């Protein structure tokens, strides 16, 4: 039977790092989605998500309700992502949304790995489209459509109400389709002689 978050936290505090590894596996994707929603860059998001898990480990004793480790951990990830976004903006001296609006640069730094050119192009388009959403819409659509979370889970872990989660998801999907459609139209026009 799968151990609960509270049991894993208890075992971690007792010195069992394997228990913490299980917590990392459980919330890795959600932490990445939360960081990606703020940063729009998968390399930065991965960096921040890793840092957040290490930070959560250091502060684990302060987690008042170990059964809600997930929500607590994702708050750390969100805050870390916001701090990273601020320092990135200071370095670049231009907001990410402004950069996206001006040059479509949001999310062009994707983790390419061994991806083909087509997939890289699709990733960049998706990230640019996500850049057109508000941060909370991005977060909800990533958690719902990428992580397959229910609205109840999204509400529990992010503090957004179930009703607003539904609303944000619907709005996000509509906007994404519209933006992706317009990108296809632009591409089709460019390709048409």
């Amino acid at each position: 039977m799968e151990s609960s978050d509270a049991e894993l936290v208890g075992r971690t505090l007792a010195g069992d790092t394997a228990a913490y590894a299980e917590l990392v596996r459980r919330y890795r994707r959600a932490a990445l989605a939360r960081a990606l929603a703020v940063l729009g860059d998968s390399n930065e998001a991965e960096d921040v998500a890793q840092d957040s898990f290490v930070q959560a480990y250091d502060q684990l004793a302060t987690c008042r309700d170990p059964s809600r480790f997930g929500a607590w951990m994702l708050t750390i990830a969100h805050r870390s992502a916001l701090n990273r976004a601020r320092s990135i903006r200071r370095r670049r001296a231009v907001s990410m949304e402004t950069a996206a609006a001006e040059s479509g640069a949001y999310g062009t730094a994707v983790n390419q790995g061994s991806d083909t050119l087509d997939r890289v192009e699709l990733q960049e388009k998706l990230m640019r489209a996500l850049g057109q959403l508000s941060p909370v819409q991005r977060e909800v659509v990533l958690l719902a459509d990428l992580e397959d979370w229910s609205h109840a889970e999204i509400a529990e872990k992010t503090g957004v109400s179930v009703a607003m989660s539904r609303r944000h998801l619907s709005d996000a999907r509509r906007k994404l389709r519209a933006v992706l459609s317009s990108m296809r139209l632009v591409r089709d026009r460019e390709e048409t002689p």
Partner: protein
Amino acid sequence: MSDGYRNGDDERVDLSAIDPDRDPAAAARFLTGVMARVEARPAPAALPGDPLVGIWSMLRAPALAAGILIAVAAGVAGVRMNTRRAAPQTIVQAIGVPAEFLADATPAEGR
């Protein structure tokens, strides 16, 4: 329950192109990265045990509410006391009878 949105908005958007696990080794790499740092650190320090921690946390909210009420009551009482001190204490003070007509004034000669 109708929420006024078009049916098409209920369909998922395909975000698989940005799935963090599109690279099969990504999950293992992430976990290895975190655990290498975690295992190099001391175990998280447990907070000192307080056998009454549950009770204290239950009492916290009512204690805070009581403290606020006491502070407000003390403030109101203080304002009232200051107002009372500044207000005239007697009818004589209230209507401003000149001092020479006060009872302890020296009577005029011949009376």
